[in-house]
C-alpha cells in the first residue's frame, strides 16, 4: 500500500491556507514586514492566479458551445449515404423506418469533410474542424447524459469540466471569474453542470442567465448594480476599507481581513469590468454582423457567442455557451433547420473572429450535445435519442483541423470504430489545455478524485 502524499501534484496544492503560508515566514513584524507577508500569503491563496500546466498546452482557454437536447448527427455532421438509399426501409428498431437526412451533405474545404447544408457557414471552416464521429455516452436520457457530459458522472455529485480546468490553470484576469456559463439549462442537472462539488467554491461557474429565461440581450450578473451613485458607493467602500484596515492594524496577522479587503476591491472592479465585457455595444457593426447580431434568427445566439469571445479575450479560462431545444422528436425538418440556422452563422462568426484576432490557435472551441439521434424515424418527422453514436467537433486550440475521427456504422446508429467515451473526451480537452487528466486530482474524503475517474484515454487522433 503506497501512502499517497496529501497533494500528489504540488502545483495544485489546493488553497494553501494563509495561516500555513504565514507559518513559513519567520521574520518579526511591523507594517513593512506585514506587507511582504501579506503579499506572500495572498499569492498562496489566490486560487484564481494563473498556474503552470503539466506540459506545454495547445489551448489556453475553452469555449464550449453546448447544444442541449441532443442534436441530430445524421442530419448535420455524420454523413451516411446508406440512409439516403435506404430511406423508408425498415430500420434497426422493430417497426421503425430509416429516414434520410433532412439536409444535403457536401464535401467541404480542402479536407473534403462531409457537412450538411444545415451548417453552410460553419462548413466554410471545415478545415479547422476535427469531427469526433464516434462519440458514445452511457444513457439515452437527457439529465444523465447532460450531467455526464459536464461532470463525467450522473451518479455522483462531481465538479464540472470548467471547474476542473479553472482549478488546474487559474485564470488570466482576476477581475473576472475563471469559469463562466452563459444561459445554461436549469433542468437536466441544473447547477451541478457548472458546480464545483468538492473543489473550492471559487471554481464554480458563474452563471449568466439561464436556458429558459435568458435571451442574449438581457445578460446579467447578480448584484452588479450599485444601489446609489458611484460616488456614494466609493465613499461607502472607502469607509469599509478604512474599518478593515483599522481591524488589520489591531490584528496585523489576521490574513482573512486582508482577504476581505481584496475581495471588495475585486468586486468593485468587477462592477465596472463585468458590465463592460457584457456590453456588446463596444463592438463594431461589422463584428456584430459577423455574429448575426441584429438578425432575428441569429441575434440571441450571436450575442452569446460574441459575449463568449469578449470573456475569453478578457482572460476568462472557460466559457460555456448554451443553446436549448435540440430534442427533435417531432417536426425535425423544420425545427432542426431553425435551430441550426440560429447557431450556424454565430458559430462561424465566432471562428472567423477568433482567427482574425489570432485567438483561435490557442482557444479550443467545442460544439456538441449530450447525445445524438436515431437514424430511423420517430413518427413521420422526428428522431429519438441515441447515446450509442453521435458527433461532436472541436476547432482551434490544438485540435487537428480537417479531420474526421472514428465512425458510426453505415446508418449512424452506433459508433463502431475508434469509439470515444465522455471520459476520453474530457481527457482530450484537459490534454489540449496542458493537463494530464490522471494527475489533475483533488483529495476529497480520503481519495484523490479525477474528472475522468479511473478511465479516459486522450484521443490522439484529433490532436493536431
Amino acid at each position: 500500500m503506497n501512502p499517497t502524499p496529501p497533494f500528489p501534484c504540488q502545483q495544485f496544492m489546493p488553497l494553501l491556507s494563509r495561516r500555513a503560508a504565514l507559518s513559513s515566514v519567520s521574520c518579526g513584524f511591523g507594517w513593512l514586514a506585514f506587507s511582504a507577508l501579506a503579499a506572500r500569503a495572498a499569492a498562496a491563496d489566490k486560487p484564481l492566479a494563473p498556474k503552470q500546466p503539466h506540459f506545454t498546452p495547445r489551448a489556453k482557454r475553452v469555449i464550449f458551445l453546448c447544444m442541449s437536447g441532443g442534436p441530430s448527427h445524421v442530419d448535420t455532421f455524420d454523413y451516411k449515404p446508406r440512409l439516403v438509399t435506404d430511406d423508408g426501409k425498415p430500420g434497426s428498431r422493430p417497426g421503425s423506418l430509416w429516414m434520410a437526412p433532412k439536409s444535403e451533405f457536401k464535401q467541404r474545404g480542402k479536407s473534403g469533410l462531409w457537412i450538411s447544408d444545415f451548417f453552410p457557414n460553419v462548413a466554410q471552416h471545415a478545415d479547422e474542424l476535427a469531427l469526433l464521429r464516434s462519440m458514445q455516452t452511457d444513457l439515452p436520457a437527457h439529465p444523465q447524459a447532460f450531467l455526464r457530459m459536464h461532470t463525467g458522472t450522473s451518479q455522483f455529485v462531481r465538479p464540472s469540466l470548467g471547474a476542473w480546468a479553472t482549478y488546474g490553470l487559474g485564470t488570466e484576469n482576476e477581475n473576472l471569474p475563471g469559469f463562466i456559463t452563459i444561459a445554461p439549462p436549469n433542468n437536466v442537472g441544473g447547477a451541478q453542470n457548472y458546480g464545483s462539488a468538492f473543489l473550492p467554491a471559487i471554481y464554480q461557474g458563474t452563471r449568466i442567465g439561464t436556458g429558459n429565461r435568458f435571451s442574449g440581450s438581457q445578460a446579467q450578473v447578480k448584484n452588479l448594480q450599485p444601489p446609489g451613485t458611484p460616488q456614494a458607493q466609493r465613499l461607502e467602500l472607502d469607509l469599509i476599507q478604512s474599518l478593515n484596515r483599522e481591524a488589520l492594524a489591531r490584528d496585523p496577522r489576521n490574513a482573512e481581513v486582508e482577504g476581505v479587503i481584496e475581495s471588495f476591491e475585486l468586486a468593485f472592479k468587477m462592477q465596472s469590468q463585468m458590465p463592460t465585457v457584457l456590453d456588446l455595444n463596444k463592438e463594431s457593426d461589422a463584428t456584430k454582423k459577423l455574429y448575426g447580431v441584429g438578425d432575428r434568427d441569429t441575434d440571441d445566439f450571436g450575442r452569446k457567442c460574441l459575449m463568449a469571445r469578449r470573456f475569453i479575450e478578457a482572460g476568462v479560462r472557460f466559457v460555456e455557451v448554451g443553446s436549448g431545444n435540440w430534442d427533435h422528436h417531432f417536426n425535425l425538418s423544420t425545427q432542426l433547420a431553425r435551430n441550426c440556422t440560429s447557431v450556424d452563422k454565430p458559430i462561424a462568426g465566432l471562428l472567423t473572429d477568433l482567427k482574425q484576432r489570432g485567438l483561435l490557435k490557442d482557444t479550443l472551441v467545442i460544439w456538441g450535445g449530450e447525445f445524438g439521434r436515431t437514424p430511423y424515424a420517430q413518427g413521420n418527422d422526428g428522431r429519438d435519442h441515441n447515446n450509442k453514436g453521435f458527433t461532436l467537433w472541436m476547432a482551434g486550440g490544438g485540435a487537428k483541423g480537417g479531420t474526421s475521427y472514428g465512425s458510426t456504422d453505415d446508418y449512424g446508429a452506433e459508433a463502431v470504430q475508434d469509439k470515444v467515451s465522455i471520459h476520453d473526451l474530457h481527457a482530450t480537452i484537459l490534454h489540449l489545455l496542458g493537463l494530464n487528466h490522471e494527475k489533475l486530482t483533488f483529495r476529497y474524503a480520503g481519495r484523490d478524485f479525477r474528472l475522468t475517474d479511473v478511465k479516459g484515454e486522450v484521443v490522439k487522433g484529433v490532436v493536431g
Partner: protein
Amino acid sequence: MNKLLWTLPLSVGIAAVVLAQQPPAKKGFGPGPGGPPDPATLFRFIDTNRDGKVDKREFANAPFTKSQPAGMADATFTVLDTNKDGFLSTAEFQGIAAVRGGPGRPGGNEPTQPQFATPKAATAAKTPERATSPEELAFFESKIRPVLVEKCYKCHATGEGNKVKGGLVLDTREGARKGGDSGPAVVPGDTKKSLILEAIRYAKNDLQMPPEKDGGKLSDAVIKDFERWIQTGAADPRTGGAVAKKEYDGLKAKDHWAYQPPKKSSVPAVKNTSWPRTDIDRFLLANLESKGLAPVADASKLTLLRRVYFDLIGLPPTFDEVNAFLDDKSADPLANVVDKLLASPQFGERWGRHWLDVARYAESTGKDVNTAYPHAWRYRDYVIAAFNADKPYDRFVREQVAGDLLPSASDKQKAEQLVATGFLAIGPRGLNEQNARLFYLDVADEQIDTLSQAFLGTTVACARCHDHKFDPISQKDYYALAGIFLSTDTRYGTAQGVQNRRPSELFELPKSASAPTFERTLTREARAGVEKQLADKRNELRGLFTPAPGQKGKGPQADNDPRRTLDRLRLLFETGQLESQLKQFDATTGEEKALAMGVQDLPRTQTSERTANFRRFAEGRIGGGRPDEFSAIADAALYTRGDASKPAEKVARAFPVALTHGTPSRIPTYASGRKELAEWLTAAGNPLTARVWVNRVWGWLLGEGLVDSPDNFGTTGGKPSNPALLDTLAVKFSEGGWSTKKLVREIVLSRAYQLSSAHDEKNHLADPENRLQWRMSPRRLDAEGVRDAMLHAAGQLDLKAPVGSVVALKGDFPIDGPNTAALGLSETQLNADTTHRSVYLPIVRDREPEVLDLFDFPDASLVTGKRESTSVPAQALFLLNSPFVADQAGSLANRLLRWQSSGVSADESAQLKERVNVAYWLTLTRPPSANESKAAQDFFAKFTGGKPASPALQAAAWTSYCRALFASAEFRQLN
C-alpha cells in the same frame, strides 16, 4: 489417506495467504509481530456469508485450499469437522493450526503451538504442476509472450509505466492464473474458464480485449494460438507475484488508532497548576508545556460574550444581555450565560443546523431531475427539537437509523421516531434512473455513504466496487451493510412525472401524534372533482399504453406516434400531481394529513417486479416496481466491481468486521438489521461513534476538531492532536449519558475555550495551525450567522419557528417545473423573503438561497462536518449591492434614527456619536474606537457635503453607513 502428503501443501497455502496480506517487505512468519493472522482472523476471511461457521463450499473456496489438488479440501474439512455436523465452528477451525503439527494430530485435539511454514518452505513447495516440455515453452515464447507484451502489458502489468487495470496482471504466471476482479484469466487446460479467451474473442459486450483504441480484436490466428496454449496446459515460465499493488491490507489497517476502542487516560500533571480550570485544560496544557509553549491571555469579556452567543445560539447578545453579563457579580457569570443559552430554543436551531450539515439535509432530490421533498422539514424540526431536549446522542443515532423499529410509549413518540428515520430518506436521488436495480443500489449506497461518514467518520462507500484502498473495509463489508439497506423500504414521496420514474409512498402520521400541518382542507366536493379528473386521465393514459393501431412491437418504446408520446408524458405528470393532491388530505374529513418521509423494513416475502408494475399499471400508474431481489428482506449479492449487472455470491447482512469489537447482535432473517445496526453503532465496543461526535462538537466550538478531518477518521484522515484528550472526552461522554449539552458546557467552560485569539510569535512558529490550542482560532460567522445577525441588528428577526417551509407549501413538483411558469419555485421563493431564522430557509439542492450559498453554505448533497471559509468578490457584491442587505441596513438606520426621539442629547454631533455608538453595539458588540468615531464623522460630513441633510439624505447616509458595518470584515469575524 496419507496425512503427511496433504498437510504440507495446506500449511504452505496458509503461508501464501499470509504473504498476500503482508506489505511487500519480507518479514519472518514465525509468531510475533508481522506474523501470520491467527486462526480466528482467517476464519472470518473464509466465512464469506458471515454466519459464524464455515461450510464445505466456503472451505473449498478459501484461498489456501483452492490451489490444492482436488479432493484435498474435502478431506481436510472432514478431519477438522470433529462433531461431524457439516460445519466448522471457530473452535474446530482452530485445528487447522495444528494440522502442520505433524502426523498423528490431524484433529488438533491436543492444543499445540501453531506453527507456520517459513517463506523458504513456501518457495520450495510451489504448487506442484506438471513439468513443461521444451516445445510448450517455445510455443509460449514465440506465440504468446510477444502478444502479451505488446497488447496487454500496457494496462495489465506491474512494471514501470504500466497499469494494473481490473486488478489483473499478465506479466507473471501467478498473476495470469489468479486473474483480476472478474476471475482467473488463465486456467490451464480449461478454455471455458479462462477469461482471457472470452475477452480476446470479443464474446461479450462488456469484456472485449484489447480495447478498440489499442488496436481492437486480435487476429483469429492469434486467438487460436491462445486457445492452443491454454488447452495444452498454459506453459508459462514467468515468475513474480500475483498482485503488484496491494489493494487491501485490512489486517494492518485494523491497527489504526481510530479502530481501537477509546480508553480514558488519567489527567496529566502540569507545571503551571494555576492556569487550568478543567481537566480539558490540563490535557491541553501538558501538551503545550511538553513543547515549551504556553497559552496566550484570556479573551476580553465582550469578545468572550459574543463568541459564546454565536457558538451556542448563532446570534449576538442583545443590549440587555450584555448589560446583565457585565453586571453579574456572581462567582461565574459566564456559566450563568452558558446555562441560559443551553436552555434557550435557539440552541437547537444553531446546533441542529450543525447536524443538518452532516446529515446533508435538503428539501429536494437534486441530481438529474431536481424534485421537491415537501415533507423533509419534519426531519429538520425533529433535529432541532432533539438538540433542544438534549436527546442522548446514542438515542439520537438509533432513532435516525431505526426509529421505526424502536419501542415507543405513545403515538407521539412513535411518530417522532419515524420522522427521525427521514435521515435515511432525504438524500440526493436520481429519479429518472431507468435501471431499477441500479436505482436501489444507488439509494442504499447513498445511505451507507452518509451513515458511515456521519456516525463513523469512515468512507465505507469506497468499498462498493473494490475493497477499500486505505481502510479496513472490504467489499464484502460493504455488501453486508448494503443488504440491510436493500431490505429497507425508503419512502421519500415525490409525485410521478415526466422524468420521475421512481416515485415512492410516504408515511402518514397518526392524528393522535398531533404533528403540525398547514391545516388546509379539501372539501368532499372538491375531492370528488379531483378524483373524477384523475380517473379520466388514468383511463386516457392506459389507452396510450396499449399498442396503437397498426403498431408493430409491444410497449410505448415501439410507439412511433409523437403525439401519443407527448400526451403520455403530459398525462403521467398530471396524474402524478393529482395523486399527490389526493394523498395530502383525509378522504373522509377533508383535513390535511401529516405526511412524513422515513423508512420501514420491507416485507419478508418477495413480490415480483412484473407483478408490482402490473398492479400499478392497472391503477393507471406506470413502472416504479422494485426489482424482485430488492422487494423483500434478504441478504444482498456482492456486485462485482460495483456493476449492477454482475451480482456474485450473497453476503450475509452484518457490520464491518474491523470496526467490530465484542459480539454484535445477530441479524435475524426476518428483519432488515437496521435495529441491530443502530445498536452496533452505539454499543460500548464501537470505537468510532462517540469519538467522531465529540470531535465534531469540539470542531464546531473551536474551529478545528482534535482530528482535523471530522468526516474521515480513516488512515487517510488526520491524526488527533491530543489523542488522550479525545479518548477521555469520548469515554466520559458515552459513560455520562451521551449528553451533548453537558459536553458543550464542559468545553465552553474550559479556560482553553476562553482564550483570546491574539497572535503569539513563538507559539505560532511552533504550531502555526493552532492544533495544540494555544489560543482561540479566529473564525468567521457562517452563512446563517451573517444573515441572522443582520436581521437581528436591524430589529427584523422573527424568532418564532414557522410551520413547515416554502417548499412544503408549494407541494409535490419538479423544482424548475416542466418548462412552465405555473410550477416550480421562483427565484424569490427560493430565496425565501422571510424574517425567520436562516435554519428555516428552503434548502433546495443546487438552488440554495443566495445569501447562504454565497457565504459557504455546504453542498447539500454531501456530508459536511467542516464548512469552507472563503472571501470572494461575489460576497462583496452581495453586501454592497443586494436588496436584502440594503433592506437590513435601512431598517437598522431607521432604528438608529429613531434613537433621537429618546432624546439623549440635542447636540447634533453628540447625537451622531451616540448613534454610532449604538450601531457598533448592535453590529459588533463593542463600542467604537476613537478612530472609528472619527471615521464615522468624516463619512457623514462627506456624504451630506457638510450641510444640514434632508431626512431622505440622512436616511440614505445612515443606510450606507450601516451597510458598511455589515460589510466590514469584523462583522463576519468571530474572535
